[in-house]
């Protein structure tokens, strides 16, 4: 197979990379792990004019300080799996990453790439949302952070401007109970991804769920009130949660060749129920 031809930028530092994006941001595909753009090119779905490989920029650090985790753009998924801090303090992220692709692809694919693609099958986005994730965007004008749902605009569209480079993603450490589940039907790409978390804040139990693959944009649902109202009746709480997903997203649910709207809605409600069951279990 021959890939469509493109021209290659290999900047040696961030300033050079930002210069390229300033001039040609609209035409450049940023390449770190490159697994998504390679696939799209192999499927004939992308013909970029320019690719910019950012592996020489030294963006390969994982930093943990005062309960905040920073993962730079070049860090691969397996580097995170092997990282003790992720394993011990960010179990939701760890569990999520173990679900992405396979053990060999994870030697190349990056966490930042998975999130900034903003695809409906983006596995790590629910963890990004529940752990107060922020994208750190840099351009020649400076650095800004965009967090949570504000980062996601539409299917495969984010708040990132053409002249900006996502240099890292930040997460907060949240001490609570979390669970991730996905549903993969016909390939390594998920149809739906669901993460749930339960933690205490100011004496209240917060119970939240984040979902990708259900609607155009990722979704966060706060089930804290319903959980409080259920007064420990887990079965009733889970039933209400399933019903809420089925009724609330009935008109917004997406459909494609891999899963119809009804199928997605059903799978999502089941995964929401299963993840919540784990996190509310005493």
């Amino acid at each position, binding site marked *: *197979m*021959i*890939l*469509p*031809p*493109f*021209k*290659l*930028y*290999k900047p040696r530092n961030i300033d050079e990379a930002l*210069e*390229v994006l300033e*001039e*040609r941001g609209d035409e450049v595909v940023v*390449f770190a792990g*490159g*697994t998504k753009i*390679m*696939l799209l*090119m*192999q*499927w004939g779905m992308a013909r970029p004019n*320019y*690719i910019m*490989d950012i*592996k020489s920029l030294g963006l390969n650090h994982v930093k943990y300080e005062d309960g905040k985790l920073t993962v730079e753009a070049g860090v691969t998924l397996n580097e995170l799996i092997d990282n003790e801090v992720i394993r011990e303090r960010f179990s939701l992220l760890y569990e999520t990453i173990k679900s992405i*692709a*396979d*053990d*060999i*692809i994870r*030697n*190349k694919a990056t966490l930042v790439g998975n999130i900034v693609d903003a695809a409906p099958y983006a596995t790590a986005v629910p963890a990004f949302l529940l752990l107060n994730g922020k994208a750190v965007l840099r351009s020649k004008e400076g650095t800004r952070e965009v967090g949570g749902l504000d980062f996601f605009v539409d299917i495969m569209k984010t708040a990132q401007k053409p002249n900006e480079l996502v240099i890292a993603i930040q997460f907060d450490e949240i001490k609570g109970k979390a669970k991730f589940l996905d549903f993969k039907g016909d*390939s*390594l790409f998920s149809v739906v991804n669901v993460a749930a978390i339960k933690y205490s804040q100011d004496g209240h139990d917060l119970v939240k769920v984040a979902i990708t693959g259900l609607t155009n944009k990722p979704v966060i649902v706060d089930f804290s009130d319903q959980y409080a109202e259920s007064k420990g009746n887990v079965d009733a709480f889970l039933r209400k949660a399933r019903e809420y997903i089925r009724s609330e997203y009935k008109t917004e649910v997406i459909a494609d060749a891999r899963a119809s709207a009804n199928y997605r809605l059903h799978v999502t409600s089941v995964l929401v129920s299963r993840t919540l069951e784990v996190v509310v279990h005493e």
Partner: protein
Amino acid sequence: MSEPPELVTIRIKVNGVERELQVRPHERLLDVLRDRLHILSVRGSCEQGSCGLCTVLVNGIPMKSCMVLAHEVDGAEITTVEGISNLGEITLLQRKFIEHFAFQCGFCTPAFVLVGHYLLNKHKRLLTREEVAEGISGLICRCTGYKPIIDAIVDASREMYGKNV
């Protein structure tokens, strides 16, 4: 801003031999290994990162070469199945593949041997069946049902590093 060059010069060490090549930006490592260096144990099969039969070791780590652009491996050491043994002798792991009949048509075997070789080198201890299953999860074999492949790799780890798992 000037246009980037049409060709990129890369220096790689393939199975211990230094190579300098001029590649086009869109050439994949798979194409370079098969079409230019004629290493045909690296199979192009699904060519979309699913089957893993084009897996090679890049600086000792398994990568699916259909998902790697050639320029990315500039300065790297590439190992294919030909590079894991000395003077054409088969390794202990390869012997275990034969003993356990861990192949039938053999098309996927180079990739499984390379990943097995990587797992043995990475852990340097007795491997569990679960660890091996996870390690080979990115590879597809349509003949064996995987059991004899896992048997072979676990048996090799047993002989190299210990007794029972």
